[in-house]
């Protein structure tokens, strides 16, 4: 794409999210969300491939519907309570509407159906932006409207973790796997958001490097299905060795960083006296772990001298810098010993 156009779109994307972050008025927050939606639309359809255009359309319709619902809910709240400030508590009815609208924006179950199909239609870089950057603005709004209808939030959280686990089990397309992974992780974040917003932020901050690493690994191998990953040992042997660590970190196994948010969230849920919900969420993480494990089996643990699953491609030197991947991979695998520092940075 023309670099000027690309820079305008990326800067608008940044503007939209920053506007939502900085706003204390609901209309401004809504405007930020709309700007970021509009900015990503050309990025999604840049290749003019029918599948990409389909994904773009689906994304636009769902996000526009969600934004309209946010507008409606905030207007209703202004009508009932007389003010537009985000910092003031919402009336319960627009609060529930806002929660569902933001859930639709982020891709929480049971309004998650758009996410796998949209993500599947995008190329890996745009998919990365969708999975990480686009989650920030609705997440912040969700944090700010807490505490809201507790049973609704718990329902959204538990359903998301379960749907994220079960939905990903039958997938062979990597982007759909990452979509369901995103749904599951967002479920964890929502569960704790009603009690402790900083822990939800911690979960998001740990989730972003892990997802970034995974997308970058798939991009380096130019693979979009589980089968094509099997050739990665010939292209990038070092990356093949590291990927299971990133994937198991996504699954939340100690001693990798992905365990930190899960541990902290389970601790908070236990302190709040809902250990049953905590156990259900913990066990649902096992579902997601299964498909992460399957991807790492296909990629790393079945390499030669065992049977080859794919033809070996040419090993070409990459010209792209691998420094971002190196940094994010280190963060996603080795941050657990720094947990006290990380928590302190989030002023917990």
């Amino acid at each position, binding site marked *: 794409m023309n670099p000027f156009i690309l820079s305008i779109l990326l800067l608008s994307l940044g503007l939209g999210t920053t506007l939502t972050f900085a706003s204390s008025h609901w209309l401004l927050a809504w405007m930020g969300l709309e700007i970021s939606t509009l900015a990503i639309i050309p990025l999604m359809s840049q290749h003019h491939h029918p599948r990409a255009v389909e994904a773009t359309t689906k994304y636009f319709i769902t996000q526009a519907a969600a934004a309209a619902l946010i507008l409606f809910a905030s207007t209703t709240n202004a009508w009932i309570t007389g003010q537009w400030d985000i910092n003031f508590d919402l009336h319960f009815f627009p609060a529930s509407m806002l929660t569902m609208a933001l859930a639709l924006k982020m891709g929480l179950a049971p309004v998650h159906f758009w996410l796998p199909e949209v993500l599947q239609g995008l190329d890996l870089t745009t998919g990365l932006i969708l999975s990480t950057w686009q989650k920030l603005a609705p997440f912040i709004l969700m944090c700010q409207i807490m505490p809201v209808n507790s049973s609704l939030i718990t329902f959204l959280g538990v359903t998301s973790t379960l749907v994220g686990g079960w939905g990903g089990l039958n997938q062979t397309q990597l982007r759909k796997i990452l979509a369901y992974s995103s749904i599951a992780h967002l479920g964890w974040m929502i569960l704790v958001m009603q009690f402790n917003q900083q822990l939800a932020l911690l979960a998001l901050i740990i989730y972003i490097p892990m997802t970034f690493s995974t997308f970058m690994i798939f991009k380096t191998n130019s693979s979009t299905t589980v089968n094509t990953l099997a050739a990665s040992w010939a292209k990038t042997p070092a990356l093949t060795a590291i990927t299971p660590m990133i994937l198991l970190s996504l699954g939340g196994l*100690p001693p990798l960083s992905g365990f930190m948010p899960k541990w902290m969230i*389970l*601790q908070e849920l236990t302190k709040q006296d809902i250990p049953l919900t905590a156990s259900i969420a913990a066990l649902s993480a*096992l579902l997601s772990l299964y498909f992460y*494990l399957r991807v790492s089996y296909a990629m790393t643990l079945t390499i030669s001298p065992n049977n080859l699953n794919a033809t070996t491609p040419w090993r070409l030197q990459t010209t792209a810098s691998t420094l971002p991947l190196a940094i994010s991979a280190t963060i996603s695998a080795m941050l657990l010993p720094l947990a006290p520092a990380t928590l302190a940075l989030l002023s917990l």
Partner: protein
Amino acid sequence: MLKILIPTLFLLPTTWLTSSKWLWPTALTQSMLIALGSITWLNNTTDTGWTALNSYIGTDPLSTPLLVLSCWLLPLMLLASQNHLSSEPINRQRMYITLLATLQLFLILAFGATEMIMFYVMFEATLIPTLLVITRWGNQTERLNAGTYFLFYTLAGSLPLLVALLMLQNNTGTLSLLIIPYAKPLLLMPFGSKIWWAACMIAFLVKMPLYGMHLWLPKAHVEAPVAGSMVLAAVLLKLGGYGMMRLMIVLDPLSKEMVYPFIVLALWGVIMTGSICLRQTDLKSLIAYSSVSHMGLVAGGILIQTPWGFTGALILMIAHGLASSALFCLANTNYERTHSRTMLLARGLQIALPLMTTWWFIASLANLALPPLPNLMGELMILTSLFNWSAWTLILTGIGTLITAAYSLYMFLMSQRGPLPQHMLALPPSYTREHLLMALHLIPLLLIILKPALLWGWFAC
């Protein structure tokens, strides 16, 4: 503790920086020196019970035998793996040693942890290197399924444990093993506490394994390469026993009613898995089921919560660790020569490899708990404490002992005695490395006869 931890950590640069000619000797020497250094931990003379104590880690008479066993096992694992890895590219060999060294590090931190969450994190952390060793370096396609079973059985048990530990922290305000014995009594609810007890124990019972939840073990032990089998049988199962012993102090009044079904399962498992051993055709599978059988006795000894039960459990854990690991090494010597684990194919080996028969004999005798080996001491103490609790258990444990003797003898006679088959041509004779490996397993076991008090844990008076 740092005197052992830092050299273990620095095994990692050692493996990656030494030249390929010196890789194995250097790794072996360093791990052997660490093992010899770890033996000093057996000297527990403090009044508080905790030695080498700092804010995070400490050792006490319960953990030191297990720590020494894990440290001792690393050079043995390296010795055992040297042959089958020699055909791999050098970086894969380095990767393998790295995995074993990180596993060692996590094990030392797990046994030395004084805080339960640290123990939990290290307990789970041992899963990853073991999973990678089993699924990457195992030899058959079933290894993927084995890895999945291993990971998911253990995790399904241990995630409720995490929630249970966090509930305990909420209740008592701390999870430090130094403080918990003196903390205020637990606030117990009638039904919820029983679920909490089960959540605490199930993780360790799956790891031990208890009979109903043991399905992962034969798969994992059989599909793993020799170092994986060794560390699984010798140390990782004992993590379960160790965790149970640590948590029993906290769970006290609840355990009186809750242990019944688990003791029943444990004892029944001793007989069932023993009987399955008599019908096994796969040598490693036989040894794996024998591990389940012995650990069933250990589980019974721990669940009974008497001093003799705990002591017997600890002794049996160490003795079984050495004996079982020795048997897996012996099975591997067969596998490396014939590339088959079928007992029918590799029999009558006394004629071909007579010196190895000595080791087979001693290892089989250790497995069937021959006096004066510590295996018998452990089994007898557990037997006695169970008999004291209920005379009827003697039937189960007695029959269990008989069946253990039967299958150990069956294994020995099948592999060593009888005619050598016609197809066994050109077997390489036993290497000195293999003899050294077996000696390093069995000589400590024989030496323990002279001072078993080292392994008596808290009750060595």
